[in-house]
């Protein structure tokens, strides 16, 4: 109700603004433009604030880098906290009666699923998944499922795939339940919704790497920590979409249900939830995708399964093996994505008419069960429960040969364009180093002011405040210099990502064929665990910041391309048509109609690019990108809570700041919807 009530009131508010700009056009004086322009007014306020505060700051702390007087050394309390946890983990009630039980429940659940999967055997699991996919998503998805599971087996990854599947099943269920409950609260109560939003925002901006350490400390290495870290990452989209679905329910229908005298609970169960089921399913879909993308990161803390195979392959520099373990992750993602997505599409449709009765409703489900049991038994009689050892196709050797060939021919001395090693050192010398020096050389108050300005120009004063506070927190934590180093890496990589992404996105928006060609490539880039390409990028670009940037660009590019293409495609065809009829050239259409109209989408692309690049630049700590990423890896590896947590917190602050500074205004619009 409140959403509909606020909507009319915003309309009159935009009226005067529109007439105001019209008046300016007739009397174009600079002064009045400044007074009337929203942005200029904000800038004026900032200039005044700066004029007062900067001299003060400069007088007190003359040096440009963050003043020591304003830092808080948290390493000692954190070190003590870490010792306390380790010493009391076996005796304190909070572990005995709370964390310990959570941990046990997770282990028991994962184990239960794993035992079921192993009992079904490869034949049973494949049959069951194929049949379920066929029931809820149709024949095409069923075939995809069958082929995918077969490939997992053929790659010799059956057991790790089942371990990952068990972990995912529990993590996704927990994410859906927790996210669903949060979303329910947010969807039913305006106050809860408002309280929840910043929490969900933050959870999504956090790079997963940053919170592995605290999770490890409390739960220890292994499955419970991995599941928990995954839930933190995967629950927010579920919560968001549930809230969105509940809030978007048709007011008319609800009114009708209420007038029939339904109780609150009846209204919820019989009207609001069913009306929101499309969003709910999309939420489940998103939770699954996010959870799978955590599978490998979770392996750093001993999650086991496919992620662990990728991680182990990396330590023997075996790209082929890493790929063999990475592919099943991609395939699982594809199967689950397609199944839940088509299930969502089918929800609205009326049930298929015709066909024998046996293929519909519960008899069909019973059939699925019977066939699965039968196939399982046949599989058992045929022999091994796990995939037969002889039926594997080794891809490691050819992949590694291909990698070696690539490195031999691209690393250096390629005529005209130079080798990848030369690019890397040029990138470091001409882009990264000047940028880092510039950022570290800038006085801290200048950085804060720039952040405040950018965030305020693109958002509200609250956005600006959050961004500036996040930045200041980095200084207070005493990691200003490494944070500026990380920031420079992020900015440089984002720049390259956007240039490439916009160019490819524009091209794909114009040619359907190109878009179709790109689709599978983008799918693979997005779902392939980032760890898989960490080693090839080192082979190509050497150790340092350049390979981290390369990995980040590969990872963030698909999202930017997709959003750009979508945005350009969705531009009102009428506007394009009228531009064309006025004789605009292709270039003019693009520059003057399509790009301006697609502005919200492009801003969203920038925002997504920034967040994704940050996530990978941090993992770049594993290939020598240094700065905050290295500190987090160091903290994890040495169990050094102080270094790791402070760096993690700084990453979170950087993420928040970058998100706010690039926050497209569309998020404010979404609030009303």
């Amino acid at each position, binding site marked *: 109700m409140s959403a509909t009530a606020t909507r009319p009131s915003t309309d009159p508010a935009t009226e005067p603004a529109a007439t105001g700009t019209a008046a300016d056009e007739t009397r174009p004086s600079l002064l009045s433009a400044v007074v009337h322009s929203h942005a200029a007014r904000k800038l004026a306020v900032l200039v005044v604030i700066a004029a007062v505060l900067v001299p003060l700051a400069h007088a007190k702390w003359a040096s440009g880098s963050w003043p020591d007087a304003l830092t808080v050394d948290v390493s000692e309390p954190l070190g003590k906290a870490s010792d306390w946890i380790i010493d009391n983990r076996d005796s304190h009630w909070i572990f005995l009666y709370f964390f310990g039980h959570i941990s046990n429940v997770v282990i028991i659940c994962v184990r239960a699923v*794993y035992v079921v999967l192993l009992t079904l055997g490869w034949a049973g699991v494949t049959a069951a998944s194929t049949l379920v996919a066929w029931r809820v998503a149709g024949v095409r998805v069923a075939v995809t499922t069958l082929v995918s599971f077969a490939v997992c087996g053929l790659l010799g990854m059956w057991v790790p795939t089942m371990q990952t599947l068990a972990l995912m099943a529990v993590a996704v269920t927990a994410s859906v339940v927790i996210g669903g409950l949060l979303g329910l609260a947010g969807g039913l109560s305006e106050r809860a919704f408002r309280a929840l939003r910043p929490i969900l925002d933050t959870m999504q901006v956090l790079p997963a790497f940053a919170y592995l350490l605290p999770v490890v400390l409390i739960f*220890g290495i292994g499955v419970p920590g991995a599941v928990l870290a995954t839930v933190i990452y995967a629950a927010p989209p579920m919560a968001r979409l549930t809230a969105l679905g509940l809030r978007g329910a048709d007011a008319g229908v609800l009114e009708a249900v209420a007038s029939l005298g339904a109780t609150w609970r009846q209204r919820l169960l019989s009207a609001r939830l069913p009306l929101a089921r499309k969003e709910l399913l999309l939420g489940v879909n998103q939770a699954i995708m996010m959870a799978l993308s955590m599978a490998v990161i979770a392996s750093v803390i001993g999650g086991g399964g496919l992620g662990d195979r990728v991680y182990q392959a990396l*330590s023997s520099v075996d790209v082929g093996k890493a790929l063999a373990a990475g592919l099943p992750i991609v395939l699982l993602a594809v199967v689950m994505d397609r199944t839940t997505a088509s299930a969502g599409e089918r929800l609205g449709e009326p049930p298929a008419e015709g066909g024998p009765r046996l293929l519909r409703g519960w008899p069909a489900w019973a059939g699925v069960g019977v066939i699965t049991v039968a196939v399982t038994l046949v599989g058992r009689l045929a022999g091994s429960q796990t995939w037969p050892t002889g039926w594997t196709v080794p891809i490691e050797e050819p992949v590694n040969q291909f990698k070696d060939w690539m490195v031999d021919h691209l690393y250096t001395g390629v005529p005209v364009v130079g080798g990848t090693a030369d690019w890397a050192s040029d990138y470091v010398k001409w882009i990264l180093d000047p940028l880092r020096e510039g950022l570290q050389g800038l006085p801290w108050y200048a950085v804060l002011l720039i952040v405040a300005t950018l965030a305020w120009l693109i958002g509200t004063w609250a956005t600006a405040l959050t961004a500036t506070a996040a930045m200041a927190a980095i200084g207070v934590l005493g990691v200003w210099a490494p944070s500026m180093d990380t920031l420079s890496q992020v900015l440089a990589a984002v720049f390259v990502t956007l240039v490439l992404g916009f160019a490819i996105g524009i091209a794909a928006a114009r040619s359907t064929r190109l878009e179709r060609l790109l689709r599978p490539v983008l799918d693979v880039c997005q779902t392939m665990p980032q760890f898989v390409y960490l080693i090839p990028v080192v082979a190509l670009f050497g*150790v*340092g910041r350049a390979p981290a940037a390369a990995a980040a660009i590969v990872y963030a590019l698909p999202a930017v391309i997709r959003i750009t293409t979508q945005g350009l495609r969705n531009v009102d065809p009428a506007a394009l048509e009228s531009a064309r009829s006025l004789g605009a050239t292709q270039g003019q259409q693009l520059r003057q109609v399509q790009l301006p109209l697609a502005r919200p989408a492009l801003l969203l692309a920038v925002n997504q690019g920034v967040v994704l690049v940050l996530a990978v630049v941090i993992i770049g700590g594993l290939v020598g990108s240094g700065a905050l990423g290295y500190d987090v890896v160091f903290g994890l*590896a040495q169990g050094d809570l102080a270094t790791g947590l402070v760096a993690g917190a700084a990453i979170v602050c950087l993420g928040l700041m970058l998100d706010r500074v690039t926050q497209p205004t569309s998020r404010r619009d979404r609030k009303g919807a």
Partner: protein
Amino acid sequence: MARTRTRLLMAAAGIAAVFTATGCGAADMTKQSSPYANVGGAKSVTLSVQSWVGAQSNVAVAQYLLEHELGYRVDTVQVDEVPAWDALSQDRVDAILEDWGHPDQEQRYVKDKKTIVPGGGLGVTGHIGWWVPKYFADAHPDVLDWKNLNTYAKTFKTAESGGKGQLLDGSPSYVTNDKALVKNLKLNYQIVFAGSEAAQITQMKQFAKAKKPFLAYWYEPQWLFNQVPMVEVKLPKYTDKCADEGAKDPDSFDCAYPTTPLQKYLNADFAKKGGKAAAFLKKFHWTKKDQNEVSELIASQGMSPEDAAKKWVEAHPDVWKKWLP
């Protein structure tokens, strides 16, 4: 409606069952084995693998023998060293086969909490140091003394080292005093952390292919020496006094790294109740040559650890027969 209620009831019953199964009382954080262990009545052992290939070789051979000679199922988990100690104390893994010396952890878990027990020596001696490739040392023999390193700083410069010479360090999980050494020996070098051993090896191979000079933190035993022959740079002599002072104040290190006989550690419960597997792991004892043989097969010939272990096991029955309980 009725159906929803039954479902709710079933869910509640499920949760209740789970809690009953875990015991309503205190949950013991020291007894939490991996959910993948002992499934289907199989006896299983969980081993931690550290990120270097030597550790993989120990685990591969132990795993092969446990599976084929003693009938166990073996799960492996890759964990860094310090978290591995933690995992060992919580029963998440049963054994660490190659430890390079962690006095803090030993004090905490072996002496104070008694959740971990020593499993004896591995038989391999480890040594950390600074190394340059042989092709470079042959042409410039004086680089092998740390006193001359500053004259070579320019030669070892890279894009990442910012005008100084580059000292390539490896994974953040490794024991290193390099920061203090560079400072205290007044070396004009910048430490570049590769961030992982994989990244460091890839980079060193890349350098070797181009016959470029490099200076790296590295260690023995290591299979890479067979592919990229390297010579150690002499640092100020290791003394116990320097080590003691360094242990108190890590910034004061100014001498070479010690030579460490590598150790095995077992979870205390597993050591008592692990039966044949525990007895076998305690007896596991081989040489640097044996380990390198397996490592080389895994890391440079691209064999799977299992195949490499099989090959070694078939060739050396005299060595491993003694380990069987």
